[in-house]
Structures are given as C-alpha cells and as structure tokens.
C-alpha cells in the first residue's frame, strides 16, 4: 500500500494529536486534584452533555463512558468487567456500565489514578435507558451525591415538537440549574454561558469542516477510527473553551493541508493515500481491539468517509450550532438532536444520505453486544439501506469494551470477503460502462 513516513511501523503524530493528548492529560490532572482544589465534580454522559452550562459554573465534568473506553484502550477493561461480574452483574448487560463499576471497585481510574467522587450525578439520558440504571447504581456507590434528572424525550416521530422542547427547557431551568447552583453556591451567569456558547459554535464550525472533508477523494480523514479522536474534546469537557477553539482550528488546518496535497489520513499502518474503498460505518467502535480493526481496514486500503458514531455527542453536520443568542433553547435542541435520540427510520435516512453525499462504495454496520440502543434494529436498517442506496452492506459483531467478544480471525474474514465483493462489483460496473462507451 502507499503509505509514507511509517518509520518502521511507528506512526508519526500530527500537531493536533499532540495538542489533544496534552489537553486531556492536563484535564485528568485537574480532576485528580479536585479534592485538594475544591473544584466540584459532575458525572454526566456524552449524548446530551451540557458542557457549556457546567463550565459556566466552573465544575469539572466526568464522562463515565469515556472512562470505560479509555480503560479498554489501555487493556484494563477485561479486569474491570470481571470485577463487576464477581459483584453480581450479569454477563448479558452493557459492558460500559460494568467497566465503570469494576473500575470504581478496583479503586482505580482510566489512567490508573482514582477519579474524584461526584458532587452531582447529572443524568441527561439522551437516547439510552441504560444510563438510568447506570446512575441508579452510581447513586448507590455515592449516596451523598445529588442527582439531577434531565429526561430528554425521544424523537420517535422524527421531529422535535414545541412540547418536547418546552419539557426539556422546564427541566433545565427548574431542575438542572438549581442543583448546579446549590452544589456550587453560585448563581448562573447567563452572560458567561453565552460567551462559552460563542466559542462552542466556532469549534463546531471547524469540526464540521473536518468531517465534511471526507467527501474529498482521496479522503484526508478517516471518519470513524480517526474521527473518534476528533470528537474527543468537543464531546467532553472542551466545548466553549479557548483550548477547544484552538484545537479545532489546528485540526481543520491540518486536514485542509492534507486535502490540498491529496494525502490521506494517518492509520496504524501509516498514511493511507491510495484509497481503494470508501465506506460509511454505523455503530460504535470496538475499543479493546481498536488498532487491530483499523489496521484491517487500512491493509485493504479502505477508508471510512463518514460514520454515525461521531454524531452521538451532537449532530452538527445537519446544521445545529450552540447559539449564544438563545442559550437554553439551543441546549435543549442539542440534547434532543443527538444521533442516539433519532428514531430508526431517521437513522436509516441519515446513513443513506451519507452513502450518497460521501460517494461511498459500501456501508458497514458494526453491531456491539453491549449497546441495545444502537443495536436493536440494525439488521432491519441494513436491509433497508441496501434498498435505499442500491449499495451492499456489511455486518460485523463485537463489543465496546468487553474483549471476550472480539474474534479477530472472524472479523478479518468477514471484512475481506465484504471488501472483495465491493471491488468485484465495482469492476463489473466499470466493465459495463466500458461496453456502452463507443
């Protein structure tokens, strides 16, 4: 394959990667130091996170899903899950929850250092009921923590009604803000909230430009494996911050530079310029075998041009931006609009749109055992997408953070046959085109 600068398999880091690493590690240091600095800590979830509001109160958000995935990438999730199962949790349930609970029991953190306990459990459960159980369990572990519930109605009919928005707004004003005011002892400063949102929108513009670069040929990004790094600051604690704005500007410049030079993204096997297959992926990644799976794609010169996973923390590419002129409405719209809050028909339409707009050769559904929210209905999505797009789909199964459910050989076989089928199909189409051309 055409790769550059692999330096004997060692993939070089780009400036944005280095910056991200610095940001995240400084953030973890602040978290670990919270008991000493007295900064309040709020546990909450990625889909529908209220980062701007939290930062307006100077509290530190902790996102348990991110702890779980980081534990997996560091190879520790298997032990944490085993710990939770020893404590009575079923093998059947979401591995994110077990990984987090096991980590707590092991008195550890994703980086090895234990995280501070929550002052507030902010349960904004956009798109997944397991979040509710997760926080009921955490409340048992941290009985002193306050709980704020933000019930975000589901877009079952594919629309956000005024009643749905009103309901979320009322909860924001009457439940979430008062609880934040109580734990911090501060009044909400709406001007500060607006300032934060202004910065969010800047970063969001750059982020969308990065994602949409996947439309170019060759694609300068990997919209799934690569994008999980791109989303990290925006979906966690850096929306609304100067660091966030700077990171996305740097990232956008890098991506635009790569596009201008006709270069592809950096993969575990080096830079992927020569791209044979363009794909859209639906479903979360497998964090325990993240590099292994990415390498399987790269080895076949397959690049992911768009994915749904990088929309779980906000569907920015359909036009949403945090809006400083209407801060609460836009927080409500943000929560209501996350990918995980879309109905199955809307999800299917979105993937079909990506296949068309990003000129993909195929689409892959990655079904993870843990996540009923994503997985239930994916087989129907697959069939419906094949009909809608006329493009064949592939189906992979594994898990998020439970290493027992990733079978490398099996996945590799499936991928290889799927890729071969796509190439053969393209070859046949090219032949047909040649026949009709005089």
């Amino acid at each position, binding site marked *: 394959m055409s790769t550059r600068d692999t330096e004997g398999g060692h993939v070089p880091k780009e400036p944005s990667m280095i910056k991200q690493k610095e940001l995240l590690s400084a953030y973890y240091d602040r978290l670990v130091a919270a008991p000493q600095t007295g900064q309040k800590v709020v546990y909450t979830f990625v889909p529908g996170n209220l980062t701007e509001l939290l930062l307006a109160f100077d509290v530190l958000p902790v996102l348990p899903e991110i702890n779980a995935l980081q534990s997996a990438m560091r190879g520790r999730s298997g032990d944490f899950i085993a710990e939770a199962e020893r404590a009575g949790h079923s093998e059947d*349930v979401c591995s994110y929850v077990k990984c987090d609970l096991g980590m707590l029991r092991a008195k550890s953190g994703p980086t090895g250092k234990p995280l501070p306990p929550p002052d507030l459990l902010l349960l904004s*459960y956009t798109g997944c009921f397991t979040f509710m159980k997760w926080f009921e369990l955490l409340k*048992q572990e941290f009985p002193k923590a306050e709980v704020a519930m933000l019930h975000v109605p*589901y877009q079952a009919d594919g629309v956000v009604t005024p009643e749905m928005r009103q309901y979320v707004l*009322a*909860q924001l004003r009457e*439940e979430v803000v008062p609880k934040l005011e109580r734990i911090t002892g501060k009044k909400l400063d709406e001007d500060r909230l607006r300032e934060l949102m202004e910065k969010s929108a800047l970063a969001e513009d750059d982020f969308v430009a990065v994602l949409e670069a996947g439309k170019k040929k060759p694609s300068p990004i990997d919209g799934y494996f690569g994008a999980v790094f791109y989303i990290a600051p925006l979906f966690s604690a850096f929306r609304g911050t100067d660091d966030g704005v700077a990171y996305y500007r740097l990232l956008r410049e890098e991506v635009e530079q790569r596009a201008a030079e006709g270069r592809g993204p950096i993969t575990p096997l080096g830079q992927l310029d020569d791209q044979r297959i363009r794909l859209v992926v639906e479903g979360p990644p497998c964090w325990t075998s993240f590099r292994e799976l990415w390498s399987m794609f790269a080895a076949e010169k397959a690049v992911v041009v768009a994915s749904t996973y990088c929309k779980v923390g906000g569907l920015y590419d359909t036009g949403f931006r945090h809006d400083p002129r209407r801060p609460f409405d836009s927080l409500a719209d943000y929560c209501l609009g996350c990918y995980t809050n879309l*109905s199955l028909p809307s999800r299917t339409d979105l993937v079909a749109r990506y296949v068309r707009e990003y000129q993909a050769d195929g689409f892959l559904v990655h*079904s993870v055992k843990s996540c009923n929210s994503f997985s239930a209905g994916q*087989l129907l999505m697959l069939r419906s997408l094949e009909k809608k797009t006329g493009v064949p789909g592939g189906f992979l199964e594994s898990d998020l953070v439970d290493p027992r459910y990733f079978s490398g050989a099996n996945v590799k076989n499936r991928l290889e046959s799927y890729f071969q089928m796509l190439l053969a199909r393209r070859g046949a189409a090219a032949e047909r085109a040649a026949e009709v051309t005089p």
Partner: protein
Amino acid sequence: MATPVSTQSTSSAPRRPEEIAKACEAIAFDVSFAPVRAWKERTGRKAIGFLPIYGPREIVTAAGMLPVAVMGGGDRVEIVRGDAYFQSYLCQLPRSTIELALGGQLDVLDGMLFPATCDVLRNLSGMWRMSFPDKLVRYLDFPHDHRPLVGMRFWENDLRALAHDLGALSGIVPDETALARSIALYDENRALLASLDALRVEAPHRAPIAEVYALVRAGAVLPVEEHSVLVREYIAAAKAADRAPRDHARVLVVGAFCEQPPIGLLVTLERAGCYVVGDDLCLATRLVGEQVATEGVPPFASLARAWVEKARPTASRYLPNEEKGRWLVDRCRALRADGVVLAAPSFCDPALLEQPMLQTALDRAGIPHTCFKYAENTAQLQPIYEQAGTFSDSIRLFTEAA
C-alpha cells in the same frame, strides 16, 4: 370467520376454579388472537395493541376500541423470520413479536403503542414504522421528571395527543366524560385484581400461580368488563374450592416485568415448593394497581398522575435513593413472604442491572433470595426446579429453626 371464545360457563352449575383457569388459558395464550378477531367481528370496531410495560388502556377503550397487550409469543411461536431481525444477544420478546407480525397474526391490530420501557422496545417502534407503514404507531414517552407542572404536564399532553390520534382512527375522540367512564371500568377491574391478590396472600393454596397468571393474562386481550366478570367468578370459585394447604415457602417473584416466563416455569416453582404470594408478572395490564380516578382531578390529569404517583416501581422507571429496594422489602413484609425469586429475562438490561440493587436491599433486610434468567421459550425447567426446590427447602428449614 374467527372462532368466538366463550368466557362464560355454558351450564348453570358454577365452574370450578381450574375450569375458569382453563378457559382463561385458551384466551390468554392464543397467538392467533382469535378472541380479538371475534370481538372485532361482533362489534365492528377496531383494536389497538401495546407492548409491556404499559398502555393507557382507559383511553383506547374510551375511543371505542379494544386495547390488547402484546407480550411476545411465549413458547408457542416458532421463530422462523424473527432471528433475521434481531441479533442473538437481544432478548426474545421483540423477536417473537416481529414473528407474529410477519406471520399475519397481528394484522388484527389496527395500531400499536410502544411504551418507553427500554432501548429495544424504543427501537422496535421505529422498526414497526418501517415494516408496517400503514398502521398507526405511537411511542409513549413516560416522564421521568415527576413534578406536576413539568413531567406530569408533558405526559398529560402526550396522552391527550394520543386520544386525538386514536379518535381519528376510530371516529370517537374521547372527551373527559368518556374517559371518566372508562377509568371507572378499569378501577373496578383493579379493585377485583387487588382482591385476588389478597386471596393469594391469605390462602395461596386456593389460588395457584398458574391459574392466577392465566386469569390475569386473559385481561390482556378481553374487554375490561368481561375480564372483571371472570375475575369475580374465579375469586368466588377459588374461595369455595376444597384445596388443602401445603408446607410451601411463600415467595415473591420479581423481575419478569416485560418478557414473560413460560407458564411451565411458574408451575415448576410451585411444584418445587414455592407459593407465589406476589409477583410482577403481566405488568402490561397491572403497572398501576391502585385506583386511578382521583377526587377533584379531571380524568386526563388523573391518568397522567397515576403513572407518576401510582405505577409500581419497576426497572424501567428511574427512582434513585434505593427506593425500589425499599419497596421490595416492604412488600415482602406486607405479603408475609419468606423469600424472593429474582427472575429476569436473559439479555434484559433494565431487569438485570436492577437485580444487584435489589439483592443488596434484600441482604440488608435479611430476606433470602435466589435468582435466575429465563427466556419466554425456556424449555429446560429441571435446573429451575432444582434451584427453586433448594431455595424453598432452605427457607423452610430456616423458618423452622427460627
């Protein structure tokens, strides 16, 4: 022509409880939904299905239609196409429900309501829209904010919108008066079911779980008035029957709030020495056990309030501060249960994540418990027989020693 199913005795002699239960079984487990077809033919009206754990049956009835709780296919449906819709690591209920729909058995339903029970049923609502675009599909988003002017208001608006949509289908948009009448019918049914529960607590040998379950579950497909007649008849028959008590342990069965265990499993528990004095089986028709009509509160508001204030604390509801554990312990004491059987459907996130929390509460209260998983089509009952037998023996030994 659908076969009419009789809910009433054909002779003048009173029926024995087992005869009533047998008739109920034929109604409750008929996966062709013949009783619903017969009702539609008789009345010329429509029927609306809903999935566990809740459907506002009062509104469906007030709109002139028959509410039908669809609780999967149990062990009476062979899964042929359903597996092509769901991965192996998802529970059985949506698979058999799709199977029934694809097989045409659910054609009898003119619409389907999907309650916000879990992610699987939530997504099933979308699958229904994609697969059966001509049918009415509504998602019921229960409020998890419980304040009157926030969550309850949202839910009441939703119920009113549902009434409007159902009315558009049936031609009868229910107003407050029609809803009040309907609530009264269901309140009567709830009161009868409460009497049935009281009988089980006082004399569990008079109302074996398999009979009780068939009776309760028949209410999932029958018009409420007809069901009330049956419950009344059964209670009288069970009280009059000559049935001797046995030296069984008194247990609560908890966790089966959505996908139902096969009836054979319930029989097995009893055979193994457990009287089931309380349960959360068939919650689709029993989530709210208390009276809904509230003095001075208009009917739509009463119904909205009932979900928030009177619904049982199941795994699908967010209740922090270990409320559900406390509720279970209190219930054990109120029903004089010796122990708890935590029975949850395989691959059910809500039920299985709930279990350790309930176990902690039971441990703290010193209440013995045992747990197992099942699927609606579980056929291997011997291990459950052995486990329940050991559990019952240990409870009885413990009680005797005490």
